[in-house]
């Protein structure tokens, strides 16, 4: 394992991505110590005389938001929510999608059809509507929001894993392994899964961005993370009315989301290459 980390660190982009991820994670963990202000506090001098947000200054490093709160502090605390949602919701979605796709693709026949028809049904149903419905049934907490997002997001992964599983299980080395007397379990986890890993990694890392944004949408609609708890998504939505006069309020959290998503993407790409013996060491 340490060998893998060492090989990853030889790649510039992967190293860059790891640094960004560590920075964001660090910010999330140590938020109370590094944020200059309480993220929920509305400052008397936090708004201009006309009542609009303040631009970045030495006092408020990244300016203030529509309610006169310090944006920098909110971004740091928002990392907690966004990271948790991004990893938890996406992780659960990837797990469910992979499991169902793998089973359906490997068993095919009636089980496969049943699973995939259910997936199609979920796909046809508007994801947002479903998320809103689910979120309004359960009282919104961070974990519920994460699970709701997972319930909506596993569908695409299941589809992709399903087709990939079918294509890989048709390859000759799977038949060859079966001819050795290998059990289904062994074929699934020792031979199929490693070949699915690149696909899963790409979807898992791409999913982080969409998950963070879906959380933002849910927050905006009032069924996501409850205000005043900041998340990068709801900072954008809260402040979008000030887009023309105080663009940093939308751009800065947007950049944070992109940085998070992109870093995971780059790390995922590097991991995929390093885990493939035919690609190892090439960048």
């Amino acid at each position, binding site marked *: 394992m340490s060998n893998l980390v060492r090989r990853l660190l030889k790649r510039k982009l992967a190293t860059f991505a790891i640094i960004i991820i560590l920075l964001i994670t660090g910010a999330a963990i140590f938020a109370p110590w590094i944020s200059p202000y309480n993220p929920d506090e509305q400052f008397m001098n936090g708004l201009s005389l006309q009542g609009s947000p303040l631009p970045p200054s030495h006092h408020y490093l990244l300016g203030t938001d529509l309610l006169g709160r310090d944006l920098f502090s909110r971004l740091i605390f928002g990392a907690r929510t966004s990271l948790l949602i991004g990893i938890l919701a996406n992780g659960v979605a990837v797990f469910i999608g992979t499991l169902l796709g793998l089973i359906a693709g490997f068993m095919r026949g009636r089980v496969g059809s049943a699973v995939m028809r259910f997936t199609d049904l979920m796909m046809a149903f508007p994801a947002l509507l479903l998320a809103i419905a689910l979120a309004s049934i359960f009282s919104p907490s961070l974990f519920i929001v994460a699970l709701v997002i997972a319930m909506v997001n596993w569908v695409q992964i299941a589809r992709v894993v399903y087709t990939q599983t079918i294509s890989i299980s048709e390859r000759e*080395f799977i038949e060859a392994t079966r*001819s050795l*007397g290998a059990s289904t379990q062994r074929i699934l986890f020792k031979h199929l899964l490693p070949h699915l890993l690149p696909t899963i990694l790409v979807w898992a890392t791409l999913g982080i961005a969409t998950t963070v944004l879906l959380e933002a949408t849910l927050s905006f609609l009032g069924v996501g993370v409850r205000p005043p708890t900041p998340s990068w998504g709801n900072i954008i939505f809260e402040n979008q009315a000030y887009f023309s006069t105080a663009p940093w309020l939308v751009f800065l959290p947007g950049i944070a989301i992109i940085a998070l998503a992109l870093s995971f993407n780059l790390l995922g790409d590097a991991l995929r290459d390093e885990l493939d*013996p035919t690609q190892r060491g090439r960048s």
Partner: protein
Amino acid sequence: MTPLLSVRDLVKTFDVKGKGDGVRAVSHVSLDVAPGQTLGIVGESGSGKSTLGRLMLRLLEPTSGNIAFDGISLTDLNVKDLRRKRRDMQMIFQDPLASLDPRMSVRNLIGEPLIIHGLGTKQEQSDKVKDMIERVGLSKDALDRFPHEFSGGQRQRISIARAMITLPKLIVADEPVSSLDVSIQSQILNLMLDLRRDLNLTYVFISHDLAVVQHIADTVAVMYLGEIVEMASATEIFTNPKHPYTRALISAIPQVDVSQRRERIVLGGDIPSPQQPPTGCHFHPRCPVAMPICSQITPASLTLQTLDKSADAHTVSCHLYTEGSES
């Protein structure tokens, strides 16, 4: 001698959507393979030889018929027992690059059968893998590399090591040298011959290349459209072929020595679709010596008298001959 593998009346039909009866890939095949012998199965593409090979190991489920292997009925085994039995019967595939998992190191590939069947301790497994890699003519340095880093011939050596590490009794080799260079082909064939002697193996060797089969096989079965049309010892088949199809195949083997060159029998057309096989003898539309009866009545399998009484029976399915006639 009791045969190691005994196949009786084996049929495999593949369902085709929208077509009532489906495709009959293997049709009423019966044959025996004695321990220590090599059975060569030859035929054109589409003759059903690969399907037959896979049926013998029950990698495909037969539609009907029986397979007895090593004294037990393979067709009656449940999934679990069948899986356990696989350590005694292994397969070598045509394309080693496709049949070796590209994400596994050579060490793991060769050792995998030992892990699957729980043979030996970790140390013993590791020793066996090292022993085997040298036996197939590769160095121990190869163990930590991956299949794509080797040439075709080396990859096939890895496949062979993997198939033989559990010391099986039967190996079904499906065109094991067809994807290789001619110069490499003979190396691999000789390796297989050496291993057969050293490990006391029995081979079923599937190939479309008669020259290769001549080199390795003791008995040869000629397949056409899912049926065995002629079967006899290798010497008998190559010196005294009976079926017009076998004659045509043998006439196509290139000969270096001009004085040895035979008249080339060229067959017209392609192998017919197994979905709508010709009536009577399946070979009659392409047969240079077809008679009126050939398109009407399916010829039965006849046993011919061989000059050498000790040799295996010479069977042929053709209207040109009658039961017991001198071969």
